[in-house]
């Protein structure tokens, strides 16, 4: 079990600043889907019980219908919980030293990656669409000095605030450890736009 006070390879003065999961809207959709898929057949069975009861009392059809209903309910429960596990185990942690990206894809694929704050070159927040704008959630993209490496915080709450916090932490980290990235940038000759 992961303990936020004892992260892997944690440095003595390293503290967790942000602990992020996807916005609650992600699992609210899951709960609504589960409720609808459970309640629709249940309510239909209650409404049409007059027509259903002769079938349920049939010695062969009754047990089969009951078995199918059981399999349906257990299947929905399992799928919902698998999806919830996927949501629950997708975590992004920002500390005073690094950014950790932990993603669960299904039950058998798990990705853990991290980068030091000194490697961050660009942080972009993105809110795209009516519902994300209304509920204030979106993406944060973190570009590292390596061209292809890019972290993405998916559907997190308040992406603008998260972006600001990361930028502040990067600045503080540069002050603590020295601005190596800035010195490298200054050494490069500026190119004039065509």
């Amino acid at each position: 079990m992961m303990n936020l006070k004892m992260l892997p390879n944690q440095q003595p003065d390293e503290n967790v600043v942000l602990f992020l999961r996807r916005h609650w809207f992600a699992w609210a959709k899951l709960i609504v889907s589960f409720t609808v898929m459970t309640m629709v057949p249940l309510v239909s069975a209650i409404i049409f019980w007059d027509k259903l009861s002769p079938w349920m009392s049939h010695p062969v059809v009754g047990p089969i219908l009951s078995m199918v209903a059981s399999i349906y309910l257990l299947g929905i429960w399992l799928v919902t919980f698998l999806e919830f596990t996927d949501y629950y185990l997708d975590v992004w942690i920002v500390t005073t030293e690094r950014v950790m990206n932990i993603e669960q894809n299904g039950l058998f694929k798990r990705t853990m990656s991290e980068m030091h704050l000194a490697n961050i070159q660009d942080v972009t927040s993105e809110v795209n669409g009516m519902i994300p704008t209304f509920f204030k959630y979106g993406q944060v993209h973190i570009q590292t000095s390596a061209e292809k490496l890019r972290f993405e915080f998916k559907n997190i709450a308040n992406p603008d605030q998260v972006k600001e916090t990361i930028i502040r932490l990067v600045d503080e980290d540069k002050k603590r450890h020295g601005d190596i990235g800035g010195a490298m940038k200054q050494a490069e000759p500026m190119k004039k736009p065509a």
Partner: protein
Amino acid sequence: MDLSFPLLYLLIPYVGFLLVIAMYSVFTFYHLVRFGVKGPAFFIVMGVFLAGSLILTMGSVASLAQFDWTTPVNLSSILQVPSASNLGL
């Protein structure tokens, strides 16, 4: 020819499904315990998962237990093919 079998045979796929459910539940439980983040939310999630799984499985077994599964199922009555005489030809 009178082909019949006890209704009990239909429980074979049901038991198979329960085994799949049990297997996936164990994997889910393992993942939550191994990779979950320590805190009060963790125990709530685990409690809901275990309680829900237990209640649904027990409810399912209890609802199926009230039927008589020794009732023979007559295949010829299920697979009735309309004959020419039935169609009035």
